[in-house]
């Protein structure tokens, strides 16, 4: 196919990835224009429903109320618990995490660390990572007692690296990159499961989310082609370069 335009809107987590995918797609299909816009997962869903976008980007599984759309998984994103690098704690159990997030455990001493008050970093209401976290630990957001609430991924990393007693949860690939580049954070294991991209890929780490492209009906034409391309092996290197895990 030559010519044609495609508009994608949605999750700011997926946007940088898709932008790179789109660039490669464009270079292979001269004349095609793919416009990627951000705004958030629900914006992606909204715009697809209204026909404002051809494809939506949603960084979670579709909910029951969203079954009018069909989702195509392009990548996974493992979510890992991170702390400040100098924190001696290496592993937390699910109960401990629930205890920390609900404010029952307030000092690292109580989970085998040094005497340091815990700073709980949580995601803002509506963010898909938060929903996943709540679901995973069967919590309600109103039960959480956070000291810092953040929006995007990088803000989480920056906050944890700035506060010695902080605990937060972010995308594993991102955290790995930052860890390797000297940012003072570290991923810790959960119930003994070690958070690495590799483990996510191999299914040895449960706590992960889906990165989906969604469309209204079954995709046709250019949209179909693009989704197929994004799911193909041809973009695997891009997915890895953006610190996500190919499905």
């Amino acid at each position, binding site marked *: 196919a030559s010519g044609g335009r495609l508009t994608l809107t949605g999750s*700011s987590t997926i946007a940088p990835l898709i932008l790179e995918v789109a660039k490669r797609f464009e270079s292979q299909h001269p004349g095609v224009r793919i416009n990627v816009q*951000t*705004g*958030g*997962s*629900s*914006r992606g869903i*909204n715009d697809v429903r209204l026909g404002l976008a051809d494809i939506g980007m949603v960084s979670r599984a579709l909910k029951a109320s969203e079954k009018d759309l069909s989702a195509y998984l392009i990548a996974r994103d493992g979510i890992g618990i991170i702390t400040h690098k100098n924190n001696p704690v290496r592993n937390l159990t699910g109960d401990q995490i629930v205890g920390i997030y609900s404010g029952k455990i307030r000092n690292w001493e109580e989970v085998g660390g040094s005497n340091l*008050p815990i*700073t709980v970093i949580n995601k*803002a*209401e*509506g*963010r*898909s990572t938060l929903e996943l976290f709540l679901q995973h630990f069967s919590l*309600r*957001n*109103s039960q959480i007692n*956070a*000291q*810092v*609430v*953040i*929006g995007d991924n990088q*803000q989480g990393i*920056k*906050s944890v690296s*700035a*506060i*010695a*007693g*902080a605990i937060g949860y972010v995308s594993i690939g991102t955290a790995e990159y930052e860890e390797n580049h000297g940012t003072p954070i570290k991923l810790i294991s959960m119930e003994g499961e070690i958070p690495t991209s590799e483990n996510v890929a191999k299914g040895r780490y449960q706590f992960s989310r889906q990165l989906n492209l969604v469309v209204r009906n079954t995709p046709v034409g250019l949209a179909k082609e693009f989704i197929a391309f994004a799911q193909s092996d041809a973009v695997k290197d891009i997915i890895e370069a953006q610190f996500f895990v190919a499905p």
Partner: protein
Amino acid sequence: MSWIAKGIVNRTDHRLSMMLAVLSAGAALLLTLIVLFLIKESWPFLSSRWHSGSWFDWLQYQGWYPQENRFGMAPMLLASLAVTLGALIVALPVGLASAIYLQFYANPKVARTFRLLLTLLAGVPSVVFGLWGLTRIVPLIALWQPPGASLLAAILVLSLMVLPTIALTSAAALASVSGELLHGGIALGMRRKTQILHIMLPAARSNIFGGVLLATARALGETMAVLMVAGNVVQFPAGLFDPVRVLTANIALEMSYAMGDHRASLFASGLLLTAMVWLLSWGSYRVTRNGREAGQYG
């Protein structure tokens, strides 16, 4: 003096007047559209509060858990006010002092450099301030009182952001005070401090006030920088070291994921912010007008 004549005689004038009136009406229409848009988008939220008979519930504390249909905005409203007020309390004296230094103490060369620095600072995007605050100020505070991301951090970063506005407008206000007053003070054998504090500042008061108003509006409306350093926990600010969430940050944090009532509630908070700015400018309009009419000074 008003130009408005009993009859506009000249044809060009007439045409110009019509054209400008149309232009202004167009601009006014567009701007009115913005307010209407805000109201329309927040209407689902407002009307559902209305029907449930709990019009002012959102002002009472019941927590901000939109997923659980609990929309307590009061803590954020208060946090917005606290952050703005705090930033003014820090920035006003320092900014005024800088203006005084600029106007009365600095030699021209130093003053020029200082001014340049201030304008440069005014050009730094707020994301950069946020980044700077998050990587420099927050850790400093965290050393002392974790988590660091707090009301205090927001106040410090914001006050730095509004400082140039206050300093530059106040310096301009001081510069526009007639030299005759200064000479009057000197001739009475007053010390420099008295001349500045008791004569120049009162004389420049209303213009300084205008700059402060501008700064207040900016502080109230600032989003990104505050979002990055304030901690964003929805709670009543009880102390300087508590994390808080302001209204603008709330919009930015949640807008991209919000749907339905949640989304409408965010628009409602936008409306609330606008109402606050309006109250502010209306109040100041009243104050300055009354001041002018009564010719009343301290």
